[in-house]
């Protein structure tokens, strides 16, 4: 009975993480319309994958990243596979740097996100332009990127709270104490 209750406990804690992931995914699909600018898509999913790639990459195995990327492409009208490829590249590269990133102060992680999201959005823009032979305006992408950079601390706090709920894993690097 004890073991079963522990498994249920872990399941509930993990569910919180995946429910949050799903919510941010849906938010990424729903463009948020602002009075000063046209509708724009804030890269919430990039924030989530960036965070978990550093602190707990086992939560987002490549197959999950691939499925989410494909769903995003199918729902948002992107060429199928484009965002899956970008998110997989992001996960692969960021998780390879996690030894360095895990022990850093938040400002360094934030700067890292600033760079990573810029690269991800630039890749989206470049790949889309090449595939459709149509170069979209850069201003809306810059606006999305800027909003994303300013919202990252807020999203990080939410993800950090869900991270604290997770059971600690021996031999894993974690910034959450």
């Amino acid at each position: 009975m004890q073991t079963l209750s522990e498994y249920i406990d872990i399941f509930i804690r993990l569910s919180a993480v995946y429910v949050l992931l799903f919510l941010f995914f849906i938010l990424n699909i729903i463009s948020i319309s602002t009075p000063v600018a046209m509708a724009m898509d804030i890269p919430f999913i990039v924030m989530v994958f960036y965070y978990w790639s550093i602190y707990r990459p086992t939560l987002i195995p490549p197959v999950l990243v691939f499925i989410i990327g494909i769903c995003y492409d199918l729902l948002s009208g992107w060429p199928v596979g484009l965002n899956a490829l970008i998110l997989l590249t992001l996960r692969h590269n960021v998780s390879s740097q996690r030894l360095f990133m895990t022990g850093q102060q938040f400002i360094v992680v934030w700067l890292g996100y600033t760079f990573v999201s810029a690269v991800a959005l630039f890749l989206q823009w470049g790949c889309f332009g090449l595939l459709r032979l149509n170069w979209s305006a850069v201003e809306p992408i810059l606006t999305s990127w800027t909003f994303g950079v300013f919202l990252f601390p807020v999203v990080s706090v939410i993800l950090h709270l869900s991270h604290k709920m997770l059971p600690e894993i021996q031999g894993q690097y974690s910034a959450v104490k």
Partner: protein
Amino acid sequence: MAIHRQISEFKDLNRRLKFKRAARRLPLPWGGSSVSSTIFMAISVILIAASTFRPAAFEGARNVTADIFAPALSTVGMPFQQVTMFLHNVTNLAQLQADKSRLEEENMRLREWYQTALLLDSENRSLRELLNLQVDSSYSHVSARILADSGNAYVKSLLVAAGTDEGLIKGAAVVAGEGLVGRVVEVGEETSRIILVNDVNSRVPVVVEDSGQHAIMAGMNEQNPRLIHIPEDTTINEGARVVTSGYGGVYPQGLPVGRVVANENGGLEVVLFSDFNTLQIVRVLLREK
């Protein structure tokens, strides 16, 4: 007593170890290696190539995915739509006052035009009877709530909560209260995707009302679509109303679209009557059989 305490501590230690082992196994054990990353990246590249050369092959998958996610998009999207509307209303308060006086003046002018229109309508009817002209105006409509607005920099489209169940068909024109919005490009059972008139793939045959000049309104993924295929010697006045010409049979004739403005490059753009940022419900026009 000491032995009991030791046994109890041992049991506790054993329980903690089991818990940690379980925790280590639980977070999705399959495929965390760079090999699986590479495999999925390769699959992604193949899918990109397939969707670039044969985009129609993924239409079914797009419709099914949209149908699956429709309830979640609707539930999560609703509060955001309300907040967006509220923000728009608040920021528009100052403009409302200016609009009110402008509308009062316009209303006076429109009353005069209304009388003229009544006279013209009567004249038109008698002329039609004389010519025995059949006007194709038999359209019904389906109202659909917007589930998601994928108005990003690359794709200008809307996902609406109506599909084949409501009788929607591919290619049907979509309008809002003010004017043309776009056309249906993908139809699922419960959801459909609408391509907006400012999407780069949108081409609408239009006519500029005051000059009668025909043109194609081409989306550029910017706020205003452009007017193309206009002869060089044509004079088009700024502010002229643009309506659909009905050529090609996709859009019914005479749907209001917007007004002509000149851009900084000397080209002509159309300021759309429909404000896509505040849309919540659209009407899909269906030709009655």
